[in-house]
């Protein structure tokens, strides 16, 4: 007897349709899986056997051959346990072939017959391509995001077989989805997770910092902040997601798909449209940041931050090789990972926010020179390569203000007010036919971001004083366009916007100056 069960496996962030064929025949009892299974996949035999026996189902004492088609592609993970078990039941006549018609299966089996979830339920379910898909109980809320196939679930193999035989009703998917969402939210920050991102109204006094995150959000400009510890760099970065425009339905699905593929719980706030925020520690390896790895090509932090913010705190402490590897994704919005086994392209369009101390000791703020030697400062300055530094349109110095100066300052604008301005500015950019101002190509600057005469004079002075390079000038013009957009100025960019754009790049001056040069 032969049976064929549709399923899918994960490669990168894409599902790949797999047909599980099971052939049961006379011969010496045995069980073979062909079709390039990996170790976890080959071990399916023992899990399936134990699960069947625990569920009171028979294990055939015959020759069993399982083929995973297309057989030339490597299969990874334990997600094919369930389709193999179902195929076996159909092939041995325990289930009627008609009962699984038009139905795909995804899931791992426990030895007691429990159905366990696997990484990437969302992309996998999307790839199966059948009318209905059976997924493990814990994967239901991800599977339902796909929106295509009818999602069915069961807690165990016995429950599933009973439902397929028509002897018991299907368990309620809505209940499973609710349970799944609750689990996802608990697994992160606990009960508080239902709340929104922290509000920008909490950041007082940081006029430049506040403006920088607003401009970054409105124009998609990458932002670098330097300042001593405790000056509010992280505080500003965390509030960025709260002022970015809400994600579209497609963007939410994409972000969830990437998180699902990485085996992470779905970001609860993203489900309601908030962009993701990823802040990997500076000990992160290149693979952790970019994606890859041996088991299955797992998306890295830059892919997880897609449609959102990648915050790299202590930028100077990241290994130089890792930072330089960011250059290509920053330019192209995708990361191509090539391995001997496969080459995949992962999405990686994120807003990069870097934070660093002004010097190794961290004390060298605006007010006090620090204890670092010139050699240390030079080494630290070289940590960030010129090309990477060039990717940052905005580069500001952040420092603490004295309590005295802060006292009596009126409350600042909340995230909601700023977000409204940001959305309006983004609309203007979209109206010009560019996704955001940071993406305006240099040759279209004169057309899309013309300068008024005063602004031209101002920037020309800076260029003639060698304070601005040609490339820097282009970046200043893009930022100035965003600043004008935030004020709903559609015509030529005024001088004030150009001057502000220059000040929002003044951190470069601090990184290169701020020390004695004769």
């Amino acid at each position, binding site marked *: 007897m032969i049976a064929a069960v549709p399923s899918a496996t994960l490669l990168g962030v894409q599902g790949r349709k797999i047909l599980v064929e099971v052939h049961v025949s006379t011969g010496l009892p045995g069980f073979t899986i062909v079709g390039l299974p990996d170790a976890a996949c080959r071990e399916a035999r023992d899990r399936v056997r134990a699960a069947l026996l625990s569920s009171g189902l028979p294990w055939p004492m015959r020759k069993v051959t399982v083929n995973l088609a297309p057989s030339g592609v490597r299969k990874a993970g334990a997600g094919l346990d369930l389709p193999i078990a179902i195929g076996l039941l159909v092939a041995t006549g325990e289930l009627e072939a008609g009962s699984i018609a038009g139905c795909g299966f995804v899931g791992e089996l426990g030895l007691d017959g429990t159905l366990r979830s696997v990484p990437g339920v969302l992309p996998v379910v999307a790839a199966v391509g059948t009318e209905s898909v059976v997924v493990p109980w814990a994967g239901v809320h991800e599977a339902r995001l796909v929106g295509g196939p009818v999602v069915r679930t069961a807690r165990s193999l016995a429950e599933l077989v009973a439902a397929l035989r028509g002897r018991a009703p299907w368990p309620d998917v809505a209940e499973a989805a609710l349970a799944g969402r609750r689990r996802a939210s608990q697994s992160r920050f606990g009960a508080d997770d239902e709340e929104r991102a922290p509000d920008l109204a909490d950041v007082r*006094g*940081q*006029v*430049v*910092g506040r*403006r920088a995150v607003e401009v970054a959000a409105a124009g998609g400009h990458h932002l670098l902040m330097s300042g001593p510890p405790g000056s509010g760099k992280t505080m500003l970065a965390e509030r960025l997601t709260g002022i970015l425009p809400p994600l579209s339905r497609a963007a939410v699905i994409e972000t969830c798909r990437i998180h699902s593929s990485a085996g992470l719980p779905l970001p609860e706030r993203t489900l309601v449209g908030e962009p993701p925020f990823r802040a990997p520690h500076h000990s992160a390896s290149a693979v952790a940041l970019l994606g890859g790895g041996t088991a299955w090509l797992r998306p890295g932090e830059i892919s997880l931050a897609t449609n959102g913010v990648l915050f790299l705190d202590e930028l100077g402490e990241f290994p130089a090789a890792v930072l330089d590897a960011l250059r290509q994704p920053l330019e192209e919005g995708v990361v191509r990972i090539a391995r001997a086994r496969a080459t995949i392209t992962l999405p990686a369009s994120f807003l990069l926010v870097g934070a660093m101390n*002004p010097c190794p000791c961290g004390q060298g*703020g*605006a*007010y*006090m*020179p620090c*204890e670092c*030697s*010139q*050699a240390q400062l030079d080494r630290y300055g070289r940590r960030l390569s010129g090309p990477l530094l060039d990717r940052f349109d905005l580069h500001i*110095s952040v*420092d603490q*203000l004295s309590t005295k*100066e*802060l006292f009596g*300052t009126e409350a600042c604008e909340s995230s909601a007010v700023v977000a409204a301005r940001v959305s309006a500015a983004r609309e203007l950019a979209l109206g010009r036919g560019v996704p955001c101002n940071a993406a305006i190509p240099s040759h279209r600057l004169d057309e899309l971001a013309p300068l008024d005469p005063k602004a031209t004079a*101002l920037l020309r*002075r800076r260029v003639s004083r060698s304070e601005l390079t040609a490339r820097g000038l282009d970046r200043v013009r893009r930022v100035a366009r965003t*600043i004008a957009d935030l004020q709903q100025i559609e015509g030529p960019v005024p*001088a*004030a*916007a150009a*001057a*502000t754009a*220059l*000040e929002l790049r*003044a*951190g470069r*001056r*601090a990184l290169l*100056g*701020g*020390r*004695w040069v*004769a």
Partner: protein
Amino acid sequence: MSELGGAGSGNAPRQPAAPGGAGRGPGMPGAEVELPDVAFAAALAALGHMTPARLRVLLDGRLAREVYDQLMAGDPSLIEVLARLGGSARSSPSQQALDMEVNWGASGSLGAMERARAQARDSLRAWRAEAIRTPISQRWAELRARGIGVVRRGDAAYPQRLLRARQVPELLYFRGRLDHVSAPCVGIVGTRRATHYGLEVAAELGRELASRGIVIVSGLARGIDAAAHHGVLAAPQRVNGPLAVVGGGVDIVYPRENRRLWEDIVSTGGLISEAPPGAPAESWRFPLRNRIIAALSQVLVVVESSRQGGAMHTVLAADAYGVPILALPGSVRSPQSEGTNAIIQEGGAGVVLDVHDVLAALGLVCMADGTPVSFSSFRRPTAHGDGGPAGGSGQVAAGTGASIGAERQRVIAGCTPTERAVLDAVDYTTTLLDLVCLRTKLDLGAVALAIDRLDELGLVRSSGAGWVRF
């Protein structure tokens, strides 16, 4: 007269390094008969645990080879000389340096004297062993090969102003040149942790004074010292290079970051030290170094210093030697200006606002000395007679200051009210743009525009992280 990179004065032809055979001992001094006397002094100074004070009492104005021969012969009279120095000749050099500053030479109780004698005997024995190990001709050849010169007190090339120091350095090592010490010298000292303000003023003073033919003496430390030296090197019509007095040996670059500056000073000016080559820059040597800076300077300018800073040692020494002191006033909130503001308040120092104040002070000193004042730029820029240094030198600075101030007032008067408000919000120390916005309650765009204009007018300037009123 001058010492141009050579080693020692009155050099006799160099004796080829004799092989240190077994036959050469303390009893055979004749082998080194043609070496100059400073070679012997240098050999003595290079012995382990030989501090400037010990060297001074050992030599005591005598020929160095005489003392060297005494040491080699184990002459007991040296024991008495060292023991009278007080403290232990083997005690730590830093302790020794401190002792020296107070009541050195005072004899203690009889028991203490006995202990001192025993210790002096030990160290003389150790020195003798060391001297036998390294032949004097070899040491001398090494010094010459490395371009390190030596002058002893009493030599023609020895800086005469050093004779007024509290403990006159017996021996000076130098690289580069030493002849320019006879020109008018101004010391510029200050903290290592300087602010941008201090660094800029130090460099400006260095540059302005150097282009008027004045030699800048400083310590080649991080911060103000380095900035002053950099300023000298950047001077357009520089006659003399800077003169750096360092704590360790002249071949020990400290701090490492000043390596380039160090080389530049050797090639254009002079680098001197009391410490023998190879001596590390230990902390006890710096107060000693500071007294040399004070003694060499005819006017001492303190740019920035905390109350307890090392620059205050220099100020105290300069005060003791009667060197006029000028201090740069600073913000009352800046810890780097606490010391300078305090000495101004206590009347210990005059106020320096620009280079003319230094020139005025220098002019007065030089005339009192009887030294002809020859720097041609020392003329009043405003109409105050023929510009001689004699009368009204006090008004030189005032006159300039007033005219600069008037010019500035005129520029400020031409600004818009917004620009004036922004200018008022910028301090004379680094001010973040955030703060300017908060103080003026203006939008960032308006502030950025005003700052750009003020920068253009030269009223403010960027200090990296923020802006400084200029």
